[in-house]
């Protein structure tokens, strides 16, 4: 045993794993096990972190979905332990090549997808979206996942239209918007993350916005949890929460009678991270004719789509969590899956297509906008 190494690991993991008494609930809860695949042996990762041993495998497989933490009797922040271990690996130059490549994309283009800076605001072509730099009430943070994925542009446009309809004074940073830093944090690149976050905070604050509305729950969580600790003060909301408020305040009106069967896929970063599994249901609850068929795992127990924690940037073999999730969705007998996260949306849509599951996957913004007067 190497006590110097131990001290470094313990500091990087923020002492988070130390109080774990090794019950193994995390390992047996990990959703990767649902595909009959090897789960992440989180318990063993923590054990090795507790005493400073080499971590052999698993840390880059984690989707940071936090399902394991839900049943942890000591309420260990397991995801933070894993992030700490990733930082350790990164600093030892042991991070996977694809992760390193993804980081280069962020350094160079401000996004992990390799898209050009100039393409960032393409989704809004033809729409009237204000430049937030000139001062705005609400800053709409689009995020890289939706901005660089054409399939999500309709959802973004729907959101913009809804905001316009409700008469909200909002704007975006356009092509100047940069990655929120979530992939950087999950890659364990602490130094660049620090710079990036500081730059973003200063940019956000210059707009004078009172609220930041994030399209992705991942970005929202980053602002709410990580930025806060760095002195970020602006109020943060996920778009579904913002829309839910608008609906409640009567600022968005609907056509009568929406019917059909739908099911809801709760994004981990909304339901578990924020304890907010209400907003999507509140919005849908305004359509009394709609039949909501819940999946076996929903709300705080939702099953991850498998895309978080930088898994989008690494290739995995075999069945995917999203494949499994679409089967669960199909088994409810619903016609449409409603979600509110670009990562979930991409993965579920893709699984539907590749497995021939004929279910529509829709952002709640898009679904809502279809029904507006």
């Amino acid at each position, binding site marked *: 045993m190497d*006590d110097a190494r131990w001290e470094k690991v313990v500091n990087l993991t923020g002492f988070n794993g130390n109080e774990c008494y090794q019950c193994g609930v995390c*390992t047996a809860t990990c959703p990767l096990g649902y595909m009959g695949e090897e789960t992440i042996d989180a318990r063993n990762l923590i054990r090795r972190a507790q005493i400073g041993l080499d971590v052999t495998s698993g840390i880059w497989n984690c989707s940071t979905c936090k399902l394991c933490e839900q*049943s942890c009797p000591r309420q260990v922040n397991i995801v933070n332990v894993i992030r700490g271990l990733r930082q350790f690996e990164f600093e030892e130059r042991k991070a996977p090549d694809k992760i390193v490549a993804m980081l280069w994309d962020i350094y160079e283009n401000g996004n992990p997808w390799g898209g050009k800076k100039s393409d960032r605001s393409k989704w809004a072509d033809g729409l009237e979206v204000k430049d937030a730099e000139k001062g705005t009430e609400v800053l709409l943070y689009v995020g890289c996942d939706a901005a660089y994925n054409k399939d999500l542009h309709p959802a973004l446009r729907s959101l913009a239209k809804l905001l316009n309809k409700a008469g909200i004074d909002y704007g975006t940073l356009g092509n100047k918007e940069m990655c929120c830093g979530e992939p950087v944090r999950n890659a364990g690149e602490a130094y660049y993350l620090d710079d990036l976050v500081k730059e973003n905070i200063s940019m956000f604050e210059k707009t004078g916005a009172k609220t930041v509305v994030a399209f992705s729950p991942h970005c929202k969580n980053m602002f709410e949890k990580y930025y806060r600790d760095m002195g970020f003060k602006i109020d943060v909301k996920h778009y579904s929460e913002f829309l839910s408020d608008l609906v409640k305040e009567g600022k968005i009106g609907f056509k009568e009678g929406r019917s059909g069967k739908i099911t809801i896929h709760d994004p981990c970063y909304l339901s578990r991270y924020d304890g907010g599994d209400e907003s999507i249901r509140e919005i849908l609850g305004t359509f009394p004719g709609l039949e909501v068929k819940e999946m076996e795992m929903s709300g705080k127990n939702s099953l991850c789509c498998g895309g978080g924690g930088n898994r989008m940037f690494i290739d995995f073999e075999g069945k995917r969590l999203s494949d499994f999730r679409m089967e669960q969705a199909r088994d409810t007998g619903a016609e449409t899956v409603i979600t509110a996260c670009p990562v979930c949306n991409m993965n579920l849509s893709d699984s539907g297509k590749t497995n021939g599951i004929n279910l529509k996957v829709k952002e709640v913004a898009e679904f809502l906008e279809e029904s507006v007067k």
Partner: protein
Amino acid sequence: MRRGRSMADKVLVIGGGIAGIQASLDLAESGAEVLLVEKSASIGGKMAALDKNFPTFDCSICIEAPKMSDVTHNKNITVLTLAELTEVKGEEGNFEVTINQKPRFVTDACTRCDLCVQACPQLRKNEFDAGVGARKAIYTPFSQAEPGPYLIDIESCLNDPPNYIACGRCTDVCGPEAIDFNMGPTVIKEKVVSIIASTGFDLLNASLLPEFGYSSDPDILTSYELERMLNASGPTDGEVIKPSNGKHPEKVLFVLCAGSRDNRFVPYCSRTCCMYSIKEASQLVDHGIRDVTVLYMDIRAYGKGFDELYSRSQKDVRYIRSRPASVKRKGDSIVVRYATDDGSLKEENYDMVVLATASIPSKGTGELANVLGVELSEDGFFKNEVEDPVSTTREGIFVAGCASGPKDIPDSVTEAGAASSKALKYVRDKEWIEEPPPPPLDVSGEPRIGVFLCDCGSNIAGVVNVKEVEEEIRKRPNVVYVEENKYTCAGSTQDSIVEKIKENKLNRVVVGACSPKTHGVTFQRVCSRAGLNPYLFEMANVRNMDSWVHKNEKVPATEKAVDIVNMAVSKARLLTPMDDIEFPVVRAGIVIGGGPAGMAAATSLSNMGIETHLIEKSGEVGGLLNSIDTVSPSTVKGREVLAKLDHDLKKSSATVHTNTTVKEITGFVGNFSVTLSDGEKMEAGAIIMATGADPYQPTEFGYGNDPKVVTSLDLEKNYSKLEGDKYAIMSCIGSRNGEKGCSRFCCSTMLQQAIDLRERGKTVRVFYKDIRAYERNAENLYKKAGEMGVQFFRYDPLNTADQAIEFDGSSLTFVDELSSTKMKAPADHLVLNIGLKPKDEEIFSQLKLSRDMEGFLLEVHPKLGPVEAAVQGVFLAGTVQGPKGVKESISQGYATAAKAAKLLFRGKISKEPIIPQIDQKKCVKCLRCADVCPYGAIKGERGKWIELVPAACMGCGNCVAECNIEGAISMPNFTDSQIMTQIDAATAEKPDEKLVVFACNWCSYAGADQAGISKIQYPPSARVIRTMCSSRISQKLVMYAFSKNPGAVLVTGCHINDCHYIDANEYTEKRVERWRHFLEAKNVNPERLQLWWVSAAEGNRFASKIREMDALIKSLSREEITSTETKLKGVVRR
């Protein structure tokens, strides 16, 4: 204004569980008047619902019911059920309390005939059965409920006073017209001098644990539900079935820490779940379920005998260190997912899953605390201090049992005593209210024997065909009445026995149930209540010596039961009435040992106004507490606790004798004479033993030769000068090894030391088997140590630390069980976390105190008598009784004070009249009897005169056995003819297959009881005859036994030096040797007579000897056996 009948000061006890019951009895027997307020319809609490207790497998209600009935029969105690405290005014010594009592709607005229229940149409879930069973709107919570009348749950009743519909089914069938719908709520105001809160605990709602699926599946149960199911009078009559389909489960999983040690629910350890789950798992194995698994985190088997039960159960029960991630129904089975220490992921199918749910503060604790004006701790239980474990934050108000955090029965009982001793300080006026005894029954005519046969739920009836026994016994001469009871000890059955005695004009009573040692007094009291002399009662021990030990031999067990009951009936026929002898009691107490337990005991005893002497060997009080830095798991410093104890002791009027030891103790309960080392002599009525224990002296890891290796005690004294950076702490040094059990306090010490070292910047590695952080705040220490970066390594619990871990002077090599990895770690210093070992004091043998397997002093009962020795008038406080922490020792100290007080306050004690009678006409004054009397109680002059001094006689009967003159001296209650008639009954059928066993009351009979309690199986050939001492057994009795042609005769008794009559058993030893020669001379194989010593704890030793003797009998030819009578012709006297 006083409302009661007495002039005594009143104490209010809130909550009628075992702690409240014990506190009420301790107070009442010390002359206080007690108001016992209970929220539910019966006293008894959770203990009444439990099937068996760990680790002894005592039938829970069987040992609690006598206490419950003591409470209702004690005239100093007023029980208010369905009642709640609503207001407290005033201050200590002068509280005014208001109590609201809900109506019961059934008066005391109720006879519990149950006709109303059969008539009632309203079905509801039975709360007592955890909702597994049903009850009616009119009901009794359970068959032993006290007070006895049924009650109406008016919410469920079709009537809603003052509005009535024409139901009236219950009133129509009630003969004594006991139902009264006009009863209304009552408000009671009383002045009390002190208050004890013993409100117990509740269990966490298992539906809150989503991953364990409780609310989604009927076959996922809580331990409490299983406990009711295991109970013979529970909803399934003791059958373990799957609620989903009524079938027997084949694979059962126990899940520990369901909600405990879990930051989402309760962060603390619930303290009892490990042990009751081990007990329940073992019971399931006994029920024929082969596949039983327990998932645990740490097995917290911290108490006396706990580890032994745990290791015994490991033969049949699979233990895995893990916790399920999900428990879900899939088709016919329940699928459980969990991960193990070796990194593998399991998915297993079970038929039934049992959740050991967390203990939480009882409902209404917050409101009660407000009414009382006391504070609660963060955990929601009553707040208290280390140096005063039963205190609350308000003067004059005390707390006992689970109200101040989860704990097991003996710890609750101890605290009940401790709280009573604190409350008694305020009780100035004392009175013992007694009803005049009923007129004595005329017993002069022919014996009219009544026999009451107990099923003990399924404990007896599950093995013995009680109906058959009943039929057989009915045929015996003089038996005029026989009945079978589900629980003969239940208060209602006791009342009915009183009636049956009167109705049938019974003049002898036999109860065929359990041991006279536990229940004899209870039934003697029942006889007294009917006016029948208590010495006309005899008990047949069918449970401990038959049904429990022959569970797979139902037919021979039934035959044996007939014999056992018949032996008692035969003896009963010859019983004569006797009167107890009363002695004055010296109202002074002596506390030996001035550690925390002794200091607490002396302070409390003296504060109650009793002359108290504290004898301390060293120059200062405090004992080991002088060497303790922090009293873990609290964060209080040892010196602060000591200062407080010392302050209280100095303030009291106890006399402290330092640098003094006790040279000699003679005498008996109420009248001990003590000689101190300085020559001072004193008299005392009670002795409190608080002599402590010694720290284990390790040799492990080169301790003593290597300065790098220190003990935890060394470390306590040396925090200021620590060298080196890397520390390793080794747990269980000298504990949990073979016969050495868990030392209980050391895990907390270890965690505190790890924290202390870490705070000083050291790297700390802890090597453990199980972290037994069971006490309040201990789990917090464990968590804190982890957070601070203390590294924990688990080593193989089946090995000792020095077997599992290698130390080469600078590094440690070991296997980490938590990751199944072999490792090497640097270490500058080893801290050996040592436990305690028993001391060996001369006064132990002077007082004839029994020891447990490990050598600590043995308590009278592991559950309900934790601070009393089997020797009357001697009490045990602190580590002399077993390893424990400071807080627990102090608690025991206070508790012994209460026990001593109730003996001393009365000023007199009565003694059984088991004292020999000399027939002056027949006696030739040879004084052989006087020569062998261990107490010199027989005085005389050879050939001239002889006299017995009753006060000095202890009743062993050695004199009687020594006497050669027929009829010159006899021992009442154990006369020759009484013993011979028992021999006749024992050998009436198939004598050649039988083993006649003579057992002494104190050791071997208790050892045989213990074999029963431990369910150690042995052949059903033995017939046990109890006498007070083996020295009572004479040549006449042994030869008489042989004349009946039994297979063999076994004389048993206490080990040499353990005899309760000084050295009387040494005479037995010589005599048996002589008789063997005699038999040999008569051509009888001397091996057929044997002598065997068995202590009260050695159930196994008793059972193995019976097995050996049984094999001997089987090896003999029938002819050899049946010719014995002829060979002994002429030597046998009748």
